[in-house]
């Protein structure tokens, strides 16, 4: 509190210097290499850590003040949501699938990012970097906590929320996000910064949070809008940290460029694959949709990513290697993943469904070159199977990609009628991939990815293919948490409770 009087006399730059830079000191009885043992082995050369600066110049005292304000706003709304049957104000209980997927796959990623930033905040010698990483570590833990807290209000009423931690550790689709964060956390501190700070936060997080939270607003979900925007208000700082960090590396030494470019290529592609799940949430799981995945990609991928890489060109950085393949996949990926989620819905701790006629009209309008041609015929056949009383369930477990861990559902970049099958042999063992991008990531560091814990092979290693035993292990309650939304307990309860709330019967 004694800072208050000084605040009037110090300008922002001086304040930042005193409260950040001046915290650093030269070690005396141990060498700098002993104090910071992980900062050199990745090959990044740094000559002057003092050149790293947070453009927001946020100091810890101001940080606590603004974060406290955000928390007060957040809890006021979460309380109002709980006190006013907020769970009945959503457009439709189908919307809950997006929340369940978010809670099982994304919120644990926030927690993982918190651990990662706490670690790299210790491993970097620069004081400005240490403070910014410390703030981000606290932010990420706050995000995990506020998300879990907000969504716990839905857990009182609906299926699929109760065991998100088991789902995070054990179920199959969550391993996509989990392996992404595990890969980053087991890398060195600079690669971690490119992975999470730059690729995920700067290039991709807008695609995750902005349309999704706007979508929550459209769908009447006050609790999610609130935790989303509360978390997102930290993201601007995270994005800025990621961008500053990459500029810092590139300005420190020209030898850093090829290393940084390799990480940009790797982490763009890995992040893009994680977003596959988000594309499906946007195009299929929001009953009232704010924009299509394609439209979001135009704004935040093509336009914003384009601006970023035009800016970074002055350092010799080029757009990520997988950029063109990503563009070719945009009009296909959400459909390919939703078809998978539907046919494997016996093994998901959320519901999926056959899109209604209205939904299909919307999809055809948003995807004029692909939906009617490639995907509507499949959905129509699936609809016919359901009408005949033989709903389509694919009990053949899926082949997974050794790198991104998604089922191999994607087609050749230039042929949407042919699955993209890639394989390689490393030390006598076969490995499969969904794309050239994932195969290249593997081939750059095969020793890392041969260890991948792939959920489908594990089902045979641990349970000899016994799906019921596997369901117990992942805390999935057959007949409640999984399967088609049509006829589910969530559907019945939501209709009944909403009826009770709007009539006196």
């Amino acid at each position, binding site marked *: 509190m004694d800072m208050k009087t000084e605040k009037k006399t110090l*300008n*922002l*730059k001086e304040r930042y210097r005193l409260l950040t830079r001046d915290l650093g000191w030269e070690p005396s009885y141990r060498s700098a290499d002993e104090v910071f043992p992980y900062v050199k082995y990745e090959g990044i050369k740094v000559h002057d850590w003092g050149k790293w600066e947070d*453009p*927001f*110049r*946020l100091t810890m005292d*101001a940080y606590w003040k*603004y974060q406290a*304000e*955000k928390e007060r*706003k957040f809890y006021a709304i979460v309380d109002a949501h709980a006190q006013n049957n907020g769970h009945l104000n959503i457009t439709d209980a189908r919307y809950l699938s997006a929340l369940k997927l978010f809670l099982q796959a994304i919120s644990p990623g926030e927690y993982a990012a918190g651990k990662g930033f706490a670690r790299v905040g210790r491993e970097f010698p620069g004081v400005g970097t240490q403070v910014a990483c410390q703030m981000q570590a606290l932010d990420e833990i706050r995000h995990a906590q506020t998300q879990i807290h907000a969504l716990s209000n839905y857990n009182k009423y609906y299926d699929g929320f109760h065991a998100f931690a088991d789902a995070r550790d054990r179920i199959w689709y969550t391993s996509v996000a989990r392996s992404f964060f595990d890969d980053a956390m087991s890398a060195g501190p600079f690669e971690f910064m490119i992975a999470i700070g730059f690729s995920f936060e700067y290039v991709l*997080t*807008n695609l995750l*949070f*902005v349309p999704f*939270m*706007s*979508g929550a*607003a*459209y769908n009447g979900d006050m609790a999610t*809008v609130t935790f989303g*925007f509360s978390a*997102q*208000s930290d*993201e*601007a*700082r995270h*994005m*800025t940290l990621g*961008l500053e960090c990459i500029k810092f590396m590139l300005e420190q030494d020209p030898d850093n460029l090829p290393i940084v470019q390799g990480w940009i290529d790797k982490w763009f592609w890995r992040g893009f694959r994680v977003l596959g799940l988000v594309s499906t949430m946007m195009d299929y799981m929001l009953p009232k949709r*704010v924009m299509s995945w394609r439209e979001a990609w135009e704004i935040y991928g093509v*336009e*914003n990513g*384009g*601006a*970023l890489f*035009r*800016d970074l060109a*002055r350092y010799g950085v080029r757009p990520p290697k997988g950029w063109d393949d990503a563009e070719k996949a945009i009009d296909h990926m959400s459909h390919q993943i939703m078809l998978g989620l539907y046919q494997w819905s016996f093994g998901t701790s959320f519901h999926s469904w056959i899109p209604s006629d209205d939904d299909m009209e919307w999809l055809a309008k948003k995807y004029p070159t692909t939906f009617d041609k490639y995907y509507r015929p499949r959905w129509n056949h699936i609809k016919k199977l359901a009408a005949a009383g033989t709903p389509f369930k694919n009990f053949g477990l899926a082949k997974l990609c050794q790198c991104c861990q998604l089922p191999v559902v994607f087609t050749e970049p230039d042929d949407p009628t042919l699955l993209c099958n890639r394989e390689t042999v490393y030390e006598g063992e076969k490995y499969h991939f969904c794309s050239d991008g994932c195969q290249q990531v593997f081939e750059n560091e095969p020793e890392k990815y041969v260890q991948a814990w792939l959920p489908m092979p594990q089902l045979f290693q641990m349970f000899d293919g016994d799906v019921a035993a596997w369901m117990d292990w992942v805390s999935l309650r057959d007949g409640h948490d999984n399967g088609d939304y049509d006829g589910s307990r969530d559907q019945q309860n939501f209709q009944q409770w909403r009826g009770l709330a709007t009539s006196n019967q």
Partner: protein
Amino acid sequence: MSTVFIALQANEETRPIIEAIEIDNPQAVVNREPAMVKIDAPDRLVIRRETIEEQIGRAFDLQELQINLITLSGNVSEDEDTLSLTWNS
């Protein structure tokens, strides 16, 4: 040309801030979306403390923007009086 942008939550606190941004950046385009306002501008956007203070009629610390900020794009530069976003393109 590259687009810089800033997105703020749509609420009573940001209404005058958005007006101030419009005053200082005549080339900016204001997009009103569910629960948020996204302001795009070609290559450069400047947010000035003084203009915001004139709109809200009280002293304003630019770091207060953190509370209602959703996202931004561009290289950030901030001091007591201005926050600017720029792309070199």
